């Protein structure tokens, strides 16, 4: 697999507070990578650096490099970055009654010139992307009237219209119930494009990501397969709770459960799990 992204020696400090410290990793084409860690670990900050949001890498507070296809990301214009990365955020609201079609058309922007109108090809791409996320019927629906899961799927479809090589998702399952959490992540997993996402739920990350990056206090603690990264001792140290690793009987995925000492069943060796 060819290397798409190369992050080396990435540091970000604001007023003596370390946000990211000496982050090094590479991303190959087609990988689905989950960034995990406790609140404030630097997960979203890392995503912001990867796409050089608000020209953050040119700031005096940051050092190190992010290279896309062996070219520093700082040399890319914001339009070029939008042609390579599609970002799906936690929550998108509009005060105006935008239709799903209106939202989808936004994905065409990085590839359109001034004054351009929509072509038949654009319309077919929008319909194709919506069919991939199972929302062909929703083209004329109002975006704000869709469920949280459907909105996330529309935004993923918009990312497909954007035709970027790397899909960046920031907590895509926040605000979603269990059904939609699995639906959205399964969809992302099946897209066959490179994905980097922050995920709060360790078990969901393990189930749907080939590779995990564990962050804590701005440092990359571990980079590897879910089984390697979700090592109980490591997670116990970071999250401050005893942890146990299991293999899920149905999916075969590595799963972890946390528990408080008080939750343990008296006189029992098996702890009462406190699901992540």
């Amino acid at each position: 697999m060819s290397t798409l992204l190369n992050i080396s020696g990435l540091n970000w400090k604001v007023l003596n507070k370390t946000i990211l410290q000496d982050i090094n990793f590479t991303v190959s084409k087609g990988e689905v990578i989950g960034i995990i860690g406790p609140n404030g670990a630097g997960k979203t900050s890392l995503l912001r650096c990867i796409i050089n949001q608000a020209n953050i890498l040119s700031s005096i507070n940051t050092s190190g490099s992010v290279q896309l296809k062996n070219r520093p990301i700082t040399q890319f214009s914001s339009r070029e970055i939008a042609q390579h990365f599609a970002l799906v955020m936690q929550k998108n609201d509009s005060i105006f009654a935008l239709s799903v079609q209106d939202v989808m058309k936004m994905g065409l922007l990085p590839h359109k010139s001034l004054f351009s109108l929509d072509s038949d090809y654009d319309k077919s791409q929008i319909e194709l992307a919506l069919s991939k996320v199972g929302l062909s019927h929703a083209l004329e629906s109002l975006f704000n009237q869709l469920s949280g899961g459907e909105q996330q799927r529309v935004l993923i479809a918009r990312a497909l219209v954007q035709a970027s090589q790397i899909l960046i998702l920031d907590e895509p399952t926040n605000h979603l119930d269990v059904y939609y959490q699995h639906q959205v992540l399964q969809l992302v997993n099946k897209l066959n494009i490179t994905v980097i996402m922050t995920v709060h739920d360790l078990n969901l990350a393990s189930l749907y990501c080939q590779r995990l990056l564990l962050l804590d206090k701005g440092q990359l603690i571990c980079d590897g397969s879910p089984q390697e990264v979700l090592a109980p001792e490591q997670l116990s140290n970071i999250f401050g709770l005893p942890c146990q690793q299991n293999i899920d009987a149905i999916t075969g995925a590595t799963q972890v459960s946390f528990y408080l000492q008080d939750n343990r069943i008296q006189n029992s060796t098996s702890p009462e799990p406190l699901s992540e």
Partner: protein
Amino acid sequence: MNKVSTRLFALAILVILSVLAAITFGPADIDSSQLISCLVGSCQNQIADIVIWQVRIPRVLVALVAGMGLAIAGAILQNTTRNPLADPYLFGIVSGAGLGATIANISLADNLTIALPLAAFLGALFSVIIVVFIAKVLQRMEQLLLAGVAVSFMLASITQFILYFGEPFATNRVIFWLMGSLARVEMSNFYVIASILVIAIITVLALHRQIDALLLGDESAASLGVDVDKLRLLMLGICAALTATIVAYCGGIGFVGLMIPHIVRQLIGVTTLKLIIGSALIGAIFLIWVDVIARSSLPHAEIPIGIITSALGSIFFLFIMYRSRANT
């Protein structure tokens, strides 16, 4: 033709019919055959020819472009700030123009034909520069509107202070100017407003996708390659130039920029291309007919146009509030 195109086409026809119909209104007694012969250039009555070509046509055409301009400025501001209550007047543009006009009126006894609109224009630009400067210092472009309200009150208080100590005749002139009127407009005013309007429309049509991207939030727009602050500043500059020019010639005509885009969103759509074209057409129809009411509802006097738009606007506002209450 789809539903939206059909509606836009119907509105365009209505604009043309409104222009033609509005020319027939006025105190001079000109019948339709005289009107048609004057319009095609074979006028027998010289007075009718002068009334039509030097009074009525300039007035209707200025109403056309002023209505378009004010509605478009409101639509642009509402979409770029994602605030359905954004209006050029809330950015202190009229207060700035009022201050400029007041200073010109008080300090200059004559040459007001050129000095008044010029001073109003400079005053409007001055207020926008202060608003943008404050928002820049605060480093929060989304606070533009709040900064605009503050600056608006500040400039209005300075205007009132000057008027309080000013000469009564000049004070009267400023107060009447602030009420808005198309009674003294000329063909040259139409050309100036139309030129700025064309520049504004071309710029917005070029950047309509960027403005649309803002509708789902600044972060979303930035991820699609939009330089959010630059785009917002450019749009604010265009709205300021457009509104300042209109206010300079026509005085204070409030609520058009607030009302019309609301109606267009219901009838045509919310994305920038539809909103701008729809606002231009409905804004033009609205102001042409409001001006007809202003000049023909009283037998020997005119009602200042700003009074009518403000009255209609406040009723419209209450209607919107009632409807949103009914929907919740």
